């Protein structure tokens, strides 16, 4: 039984239904809807659930995000997120990035200006914690420290600047400079 409900609409008394997501209990002991959405009632388990029509765009655990590192302090990278699950974000979110393991020099893992593909691992302490552990995740586009042009991936996993020949290292994703448009959702 599906029914459209608006915020504040009474679903039932607390004796009738257990309010799951999208519901709340008021001070008079009624279960009411919290969202404008579709109500689904489970009469056997006595559960009420409201699924909202439109959901605010927020980052959740498990999302795959693309962003650009704008600052590094110590080993932590600060990432301005631009794409979530292949769809461009229209508002600003800032994530915190750690190196996947202990490193001597952070510039061999990531650098300011790099685009990274990462996974959201936690939202604790109201910060978006990103991880680049795993083959899939890591730097997907990097720039030369000397001349600023795009670095090209060589067979042995190192990056070489095609203009000045500078050689750099990164924690590279298997998607490095490939499927750039697909990742970006164009």
């Amino acid at each position, binding site marked *: 039984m599906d029914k459209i409900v*608006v915020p504040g609409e009474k679903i039932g008394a607390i004796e009738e239904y257990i309010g799951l997501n999208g519901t*709340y209990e008021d001070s008079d002991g009624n279960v*009411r809807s919290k969202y404008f959405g579709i109500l689904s009632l489970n009469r056997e388990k006595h559960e009420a659930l409201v699924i909202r029509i439109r959901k605010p765009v927020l980052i959740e655990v498990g999302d795959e995000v693309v962003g650009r590192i704008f600052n590094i302090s110590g080993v932590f990278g600060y990432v301005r997120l631009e794409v979530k699950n292949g769809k461009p974000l229209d*508002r600003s*979110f800032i994530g915190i990035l750690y190196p996947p393991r202990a490193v001597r020099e952070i510039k061999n893992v990531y650098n300011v200006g790099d685009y990274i593909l990462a996974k959201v691992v936690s939202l604790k302490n109201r910060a978006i914690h990103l991880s680049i552990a795993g083959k899939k995740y890591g730097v997907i586009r990097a720039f030369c420290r000397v001349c600023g042009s795009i670095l090209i991936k060589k067979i042995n996993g190192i990056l070489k600047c095609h203009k000045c020949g500078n050689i750099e290292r990164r924690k590279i994703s298997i998607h490095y400079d490939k499927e750039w448009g697909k990742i970006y959702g164009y």
Partner: protein
Amino acid sequence: MSEEFRRVDGRKPDEMRSYKIKAHVLKNADGSAEIRLGKNWIVAAVYGPKEHFPKFEVLHDRAILNCRYHMTPYSTSERKSPKPSRREIELSKVIRSALEQAVILEEYPEMSIDVFIEVLQADGSTRVASITAAAVALADAGIPMKDLVVGCSAGKINGRIIVDVGEYEDKEGEADLPIAIMPNLRRVVLLQMDGKLTHEEFKKAFDMALKGAYKLYEEQINALKSVIKNMEVLEGEDRE
């Protein structure tokens, strides 16, 4: 005077102006609504919840609700300066405190929700019409709310109590009583009074405004439900 009292625009004392609410009228905002109440024409847009900047302003236990009530320069018969006036700043505050009681802000700590209200055409009782439109826009954006908020005004002109005060009646009348309520929870979230009313007159005016608000509430529900009919695909599949 004829037997039946008629107002300037030919309405009965307890007759509302024609009203129409539309939800989701703007493409780029997260939620939006439009209300036409008589010649009032108001658009409300909602953005958020989003990360709040600057960071030192954030509240650690709840979200911040920003509200901006603005009248366009062409909304009145004489050009109005687009700069926010003293009245607009006050109304922004009044509307914010009315909406804050309905929105469950505790779900999004350290974030902010923006509500923008633009009056395209003003014809009296814009503050209650703005609240009515803003509540629909918030619900359309998928923001958790305890209840919708709906407003209506009552007043007094030539010793008679009237509902849904128009612009002329607002200027020439003796009193003006805008109210906003949460209809399901039966709570008053806004109550202002301008002018003088006796105790009995106040009671009568309040009851009339309340009746008007419940009529507008029906229209709010219709506006939201017609969004689903016009939608091609349902986006928010969050069976968590």
